[in-house]
């Protein structure tokens, strides 16, 4: 099948190889392709050559050995876990930046891997969007300027009627309500994590006492360490902040920024505790505190906190979690169709809930490629 010319070339090189020393083999690209198994043609050639030249076997073996030794010179400390982690960060980021350019496509953006370490907190923030009309002497605000952050700000605008998820660089999730806008840095600078909101949003903030999370609105600043609260500032009604769990500090924006610039630690503000709420009056720059009248449930709220299962088959529990969180779960539907489980979830995040289920049935789970894969035994 080979042309005569090709045959003669081959036989020439075949002869030349007979004189080769180990280092010359190693330097030869065809030899290396054979050794690394990258080319069927080279493999065929060399296997044949080996048979035809048994007296060269020793040199061939020395060459193989040298090649292997060279390859082994470069260990590193990379682990599969690191690869996973870095890859996931990248994909999250890409999904996020993709949504920026296509605001009408709404995609669930929950990445449970970040939340495992967080005291998961639900924060609904709705922030007033109207401009601060009232002016005080020496305290004029023309248009609010966000304080400097580490990188340029990105903006997510939600013009649709559906909530849109925004994943922040620290793993916090913002469920941005309809007709709302969120500005945030691609990566949080230090020391604080600051975002800017117009409209309504629900926050799930990763707890980090070293880096307070700040939500700026036109008129107010809400400071969070890792709690659950809601803020409504939609321009139609006075700004309202209500706390479900934990503590939240609220400030008038002017006061806050003035204090910041003066590097003063004393800012006039209000600390709210669970079940308290405060309403801001821009006219007099004060907050009015009261008790929360009813549990806050916003349209844009993240999946329901409380879930109770009584003698429910595990497969059904997992399917419910999948639907609630919009995250793909991979599990043995048939095998788990028969194990009943009684459990209730209150404040746990998704990974914590899956962990609880897995512990109950002796299964294990793993986050892979944006899905959670659950490995279990068949139950009886």
């Amino acid at each position, binding site marked *: 099948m080979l042309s005569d010319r090709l045959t003669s070339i081959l036989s020439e090189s075949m002869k030349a190889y007979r004189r080769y020393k180990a*280092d010359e083999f190693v330097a030869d690209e065809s030899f290396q392709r054979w050794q690394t*198994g990258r080319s069927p043609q080279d493999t065929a050639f060399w296997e044949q050559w080996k048979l035809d030249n048994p007296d060269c076997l020793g040199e061939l073996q020395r060459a193989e*050995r*040298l090649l292997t030794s060279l390859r082994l010179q*470069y260990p590193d400390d990379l682990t599969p876990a690191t690869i996973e982690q870095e890859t996931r960060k*990248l*994909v999250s980021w890409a999904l996020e930046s993709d949504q920026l350019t296509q605001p009408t496509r709404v995609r669930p953006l929950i990445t449970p891997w970040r939340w495992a370490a967080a005291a998961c907190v639900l924060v609904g923030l709705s922030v007033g969007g109207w401009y601060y009309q009232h002016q005080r002497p020496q305290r004029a605000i023309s248009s609010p300027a966000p304080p400097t952050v580490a990188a340029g700000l990105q903006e997510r605008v939600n013009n649709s009627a559906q909530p849109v998820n925004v994943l922040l660089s620290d793993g916090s999730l913002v469920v941005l309500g309809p007709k709302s806008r969120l500005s945030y840095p691609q990566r949080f600078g230090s020391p604080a994590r600051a975002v800017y909101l117009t409209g309504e949003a629900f926050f799930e903030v990763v707890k980090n006492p070293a880096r307070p999370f700040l939500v700026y609105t036109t008129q107010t600043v809400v400071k969070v360490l890792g709690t659950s609260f809601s803020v409504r500032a939609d321009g139609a009604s006075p700004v309202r902040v209500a706390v479900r769990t934990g503590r939240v500090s609220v400030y008038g924006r002017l006061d806050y920024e003035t204090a910041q610039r003066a590097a003063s630690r004393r800012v006039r503000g209000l600390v709210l505790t669970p079940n308290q709420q405060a309403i801001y009056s821009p006219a007099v720059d004060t907050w009015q505190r009261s008790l929360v009248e009813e549990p806050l449930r916003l349209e844009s709220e993240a999946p329901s906190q409380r879930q109770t299962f009584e003698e429910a088959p595990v497969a059904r529990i997992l399917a419910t979690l999948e639907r609630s969180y919009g995250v793909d779960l991979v599990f043995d539907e048939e095998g788990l169709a028969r194990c009943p489980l009684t459990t209730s979830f209150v404040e746990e995040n998704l990974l914590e809930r899956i962990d609880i289920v897995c512990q109950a049935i002796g299964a294990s789970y793993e986050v892979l490629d944006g899905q959670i894969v659950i490995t279990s035994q068949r139950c009886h």
Partner: protein
Amino acid sequence: MPSTPPIVDSITQLWHRFQGGDERALGELARQYYPSLYNYGIRLLTDPETVKDAIQDLFMELWRQRTALPEVQFVRTYLLKSLRYKLSRRRQRYWLLDTDDLFESQLPSQTCYETQCIEEEEQNQQLYQLNQLISALSRRQQEIIYLRFFQELDNAEIAQVMNIDKRSVANLVSKTLAQLRAQWLYSSLLLLSRLVFPL
């Protein structure tokens, strides 16, 4: 060690999906080439965190410019070249073969008498000696040897990554290997190959 490269077709598909904006393709690309990039990165720069950041930046840039990227036939070469360029712009530039500690930890602390133990010890000794020989080479030689025998690039690809002439690469490879051979202990190699590769 870099994983065996998959067949050309699936890489091309992966690259197309990447250019088409498929985030999963980005993930697959990153996962597949991360070991190569990381290993190369720490030769050039030593600090793992800086290297990881640089790799993140690299993929982020590629993603942002994905529609404007050329049709890439050899993705790994392209990525390595891009990483090299990115890291070359930093002030520190090293070429690190490996730390001595890594090899020392592999050498057994006590002398052992069983055959297998002795073999392993000899093997490690060999690797260590080769390591010393390679460290004595010029930076350029070391990098070429690395790209050729760890990254398994051919001479043309090395020329692309390092932005040098292909013939220079080929010459330097032969010259360097001949140099190593002159210092390499063949008798022990032969002994090893008999023990490790039974005929």
